[in-house]
C-alpha cells in the first residue's frame, strides 16, 4: 500500500483495508462447498468524522472484531514496520491456507476438531488487513522490551509455584483459567484476538461506555467520571477501570489487576491505558500502553484495528457446557490407573 493511500485514508499509524480470504479446500478428496460470502463488504477508506450519541459522545457503538493474522511481536527476521499491501495480502493468504491445512495424523497438532468446518479459522470470521508487521508499535523494534531482573524473578517464582502444584490435570485449580471458563487469555484487558469468536459490542449511555466480549460474555461497564479508584487491596480479573474522552478518543485507564492473569508476565500493579478512536465508519483504532516498572523498564504500546462486524453477539455460556474439563480430569485418572496396573504387572 502506498504512502499516498495512507494519507488518503486519513488514518495515522494504521492502514486498514477489508480483505476477504477465500477458503482453501482442506483435502483433495473432498468436494468443497460454495465459498462463504463476505460478511463485511470491501470498502474504500475515506476521511470520516464520528457521529455523536444523543448525549454528545463520539459514537463507538456497534459490533466489532479484532481478528488478525498480525503477531503481537515482530518476527526477528522482519526489519520493517509495514508490509506493502501485496506482501500483506500474500502473507494473509498463506496464513489462511495454513489454518486450513490438514495436520499430520498421529501428531499432537492433529488431535482436535477441524476449525475450518466450524468457521473458526480466522479467514472465515472476516478481518481488517493490517499492514503492520507487529501489533506492537513502541518500542520501534516491535517487540516486548526485555524483562527487568524483578520481572524475571517473579516469572521464575510463578513457574516454581506451578511446579509445586503438580501436573495440570492433578486438580481443577491447576488447569488454565481459560479451560476453567474464568477468563480467556487474550480477552484482556488489554484486548487481543484469540483463536475465534473475537467479537465485541460497544454500547454507550450518558456517563458510561459498555464493552461486551463474546468469549465468556465478559463485560466492562466503564464510568466516564473521576470517581475514586478501588482501594489497593481490591483486585479484579479485568482491573478497576475509569474512562474519559480526549477529543475523539475514549481513554480508559485501568489498575488493580490480579497476579492470576499476569498479562505477558506483568505484575498486578500494571497500569493499562487503552484508547479507542473511530477512524472510519467501519474501523476503530484500538491502542494500548502497558506501564509496569516492576516488569519492564519502559512502557510499551500496541495498536490493533477493530473492524465492524455483524451482530448480535451470541451466548457463550462457557462453564455450563464445559464437559471438556471433567473429561480431561477423568482421562488423566484413567491413564494413571492404566500406568499403575502396568507397573504392577511388571513387578510381578
Amino acid at each position, binding site marked *: 500500500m502506498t504512502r499516498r493511500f495512507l494519507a488518503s485514508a486519513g488514518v495515522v499509524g494504521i492502514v486498514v483495508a477489508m480483505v476477504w480470504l477465500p477458503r482453501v479446500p482442506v483435502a483433495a478428496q473432498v468436494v468443497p462447498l460454495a465459498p462463504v460470502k463476505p460478511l463485511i463488504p470491501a470498502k474504500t477508506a475515506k476521511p470520516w468524522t464520528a457521529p455523536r450519541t444523543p448525549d454528545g459522545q463520539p459514537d463507538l457503538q456497534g459490533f466489532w472484531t479484532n481478528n488478525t493474522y498480525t503477531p503481537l511481536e515482530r*518476527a526477528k527476521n522482519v526489519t520493517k514496520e509495514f508490509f506493502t499491501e501485496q506482501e500483506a495480502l500474500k502473507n494473509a493468504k498463506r496464513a489462511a491456507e495454513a489454518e486450513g*491445512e490438514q495436520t499430520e495424523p498421529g501428531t499432537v497438532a492433529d488431535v482436535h476438531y477441524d476449525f475450518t468446518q466450524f468457521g473458526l479459522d480466522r479467514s472465515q470470521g472476516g478481518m481488517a488487513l493490517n499492514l503492520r508487521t507487529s501489533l506492537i508499535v513502541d518500542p520501534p523494534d516491535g517487540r516486548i522490551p526485555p524483562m527487568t531482573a524483578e520481572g524475571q524473578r517473579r516469572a521464575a517464582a510463578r513457574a516454581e509455584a506451578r511446579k509445586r502444584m503438580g501436573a495440570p490435570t492433578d486438580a481443577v485449580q491447576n488447569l488454565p483459567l481459560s479451560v476453567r471458563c474464568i477468563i480467556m487469555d487474550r480477552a484482556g484487558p488489554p484486548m487481543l484476538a484469540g483463536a475465534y469468536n473475537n467479537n465485541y459490542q460497544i454500547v454507550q449511555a450518558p456517563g458510561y461506555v459498555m464493552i461486551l466480549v463474546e468469549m465468556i460474555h465478559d463485560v466492562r461497564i466503564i464510568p466516564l467520571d473521576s470517581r475514586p479508584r478501588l482501594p489497593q487491596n481490591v483486585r479484579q480479573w479485568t482491573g478497576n477501570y475509569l474512562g474519559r474522552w480526549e477529543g475523539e478518543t475514549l481513554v480508559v485507564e485501568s489498575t488493580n489487576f490480579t497476579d492470576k492473569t499476569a498479562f505477558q508476565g506483568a505484575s498486578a500493579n500494571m497500569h493499562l491505558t487503552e484508547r479507542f478512536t473511530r477512524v472510519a465508519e467501519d474501523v476503530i483504532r484500538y491502542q494500548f500502553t502497558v506501564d509496569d516498572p516492576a516488569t519492564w523498564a519502559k512502557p510499551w504500546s500496541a495498536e490493533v484495528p477493530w473492524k465492524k462486524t455483524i451482530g448480535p453477539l451470541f451466548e457463550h455460556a462457557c462453564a455450563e457446557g464445559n464437559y471438556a474439563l471433567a473429561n480431561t480430569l477423568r482421562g488423566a485418572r484413567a491413564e494413571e490407573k492404566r500406568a499403575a496396573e502396568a507397573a504392577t504387572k511388571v513387578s510381578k
Partner: protein
Amino acid sequence: MSAKLAVGVAGVWLLLAAGPAWAHHAFSAEFDINKPLKIQGTLTKWEMINPHSWFHVDVKGPDGNVVPWLIEGGSPNQLIRLGVTKYTLRIGTEFVIEGYLAKDGENRAVGRNFVLADGRRLFLGGSSPGADPGK
C-alpha cells in the same frame, strides 16, 4: 500443519502453528493421540453449546448392536453467525467421523472430521448440509 508447510512458511507466521493451542483446551489432554478412530453413525442430538458443541451419534457395531457415542466439535457461535442454526442439521443425518478416542476409554471422541455421505465435510463453507428444504 505439516512439517513441509511449517518449513515453507515465513517466520512471521510461525505463531499460527500454535493456532489450536489457543483454543479452549489442550485436546491431547482429553483425547488419546494413540487411538485414532473412524466411525459411521447417525445423528440423534446436537448440543449447540460452548465452549464445544457435542454431537450425539448412534453407531451400529459389527454385531448389529447400536451404541451411543458423544463427539466433541467446535464452538457454535461462528456457525450461527454464518447462518447455521439448530434446524440446519437434521436428526438422522448420517456421517463418518474421523477423530481420536477419549482418554478415559468411554464412547467419546473429538471429531477431527465429519464427512457426509456425499463426501462433503460438515459445515465446511457455511453451507447447510443437512438442511431440510421445507424449513
